[in-house]
């Protein structure tokens, strides 16, 4: 699947994560800012990578600004951003 336009999902509220996807990169890149980076940075990136893989996305820059979101929220925001980025609506 290909992201055909920049897309975003989520909010800057506490317990949420704001995801931006930018198409046209050679490989997937992740830029993560998080209020819990020291404790969960690795885990957050893992969830992001998992969702990219599940959706067979290989050429995006993921910019993520995390405010302490739990894994299922990160998954949901990633999936939403991907769906918005692949659609022409």
């Amino acid at each position, binding site marked *: 699947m290909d992201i055909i336009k920049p897309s975003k999902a989520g909010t800057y509220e506490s317990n949420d994560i704001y995801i931006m996807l930018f198409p046209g990169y050679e490989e997937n890149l992740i830029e993560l800012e998080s209020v819990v980076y020291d404790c969960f940075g690795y885990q957050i990136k893992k969830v992001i990578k998992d969702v990219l893989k599940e959706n067979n996305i290989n050429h995006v820059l993921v910019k993520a600004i995390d405010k*302490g979101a739990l894994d299922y929220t990160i998954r949901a925001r990633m999936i939403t951003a991907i769906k918005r980025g692949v659609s022409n609506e």
Partner: protein
Amino acid sequence: MQIDGYKKNYKMYSYSKVIKDQVILKPTKKNNSLNKLRKNISNLLDELTIKDGSVISFHHHMRNGDYVLNMVMEEIAKRNVKDLTLFASSIFPCHEPLVKLIKEGVVTQIYSAYISGPVAEAISQGLMKKPVVMHTHGGRPRIIESSEIKIDVAFIAAPSCDYRGNINGSLGKNACGAIGYAVTDAWFAKNTVAITDNFVISVDKPHIEGKYIDYIIKVDSIGEASKIVSGTTKITRNPIGLKIARLAAEVIKYSGYFKNGFSFQTGAGGISLAVAHYLKEIMKEENVKGSFASGGITGYLVDMLKEGLFERLYDVQCFDLDAVQSIRENEAHIPISASKYANINDDCIVNDLDYVILGATEIDLDFNVNVTTSSTGEIMGGSGGHSDTAYGSKVTIIVSQLFNARIPVIKEHVICKTTPGETVDVLVTERGIAINPRRRDLIERFRQTNLPIMTIQELKKISDNLVGIPEEVEFTNKIVGIVEYRDGTIIDLLYKRG
């Protein structure tokens, strides 16, 4: 192991060997001079000559509105003095100018019970030459009275002061109420300086008697009393906090000590105050009246005093302006010194407590509590009276969200052991209540209720399932702080982050 800049004969903490009944000094000072007034701080420093390595003390009753520490330190720094030890009961964000003095080596050691803001950050970054000593509120007078530390000059922010040096904290434009943390300093420092913005002809009921004061300096303002209301002193509106508070109040109700004459302390945090709110409802429903409430006092406890729900308030520092007004007007609202409040060698109030409500940044499976650092290891607080009251009270209740913005409160190990698990009885969270297995009596009692009791391991599992297990934070081996238990033993060490 010798720790640079720290006493050589230190001992490590052991609950079964807590050190009590040390020989303590008695105040003997009698300075009846009528010539105590000096023109300004600079003139005074000509007379006092603060040398390299001196110990100077401050108290924190003006909290985040304090001007005195900064104005004195600025003058001292001009005199090219180095290597001072700052003995300040607490340090707040308003004391940011200290960071420069730390970098320049003017201040190379700090003793304090609570440090937050830029100074805490500087310490965590390893900018201090010697490790800070983080004692408790009761530990501070113990350190002074056992002559472990000799204060060279004590600077006392005095909301009102007469020409004999009598000080009352409740009067004046910057009234802050009780000044319990300054009392022991005044008794034993080699030189004591009252700094006041309200110089009056006579102070009737002094919190500190004039005979302990050597010098008086008039200034325009000692601070901003409106800012003594620092931190949260309002009941939380957060429904999770309210649920925790309601559960904590029910823990009190069913714990077995809830009867006429019981005693109670709670902090000024949003959840802690809400506990007082729900406790008040239960006291009215059950027609139970308490004997005293103690600690830092807020308007909430003042209202309960007025309504006759408590007979007395013992106040070492006022957390809001309602408390300041009350201590000025109400005989049953009694100012006490930090020693009378929490000194392990004194006949202290905390020993008579039935309940204390306390917070936690982290708590581990042995109920050890961290309130000194953040969950990533940076200094952002300290015991204050946390470990003193936990030791003294019959039931110590920790109130905390199980997790917030993914940060869990229950950890395998706490980064810093501020208060030992042997003195912590109950953890109340929004998803369940854990009782320390040492308290079989409480476990048995709560079995008869519908309260959501579980083991702390079970609670941790709920938390881990929701947020995951955080990565361990790494530290270097550079010691930036020593955490002292109330008896002066070392309970933990703080390290610089890796």
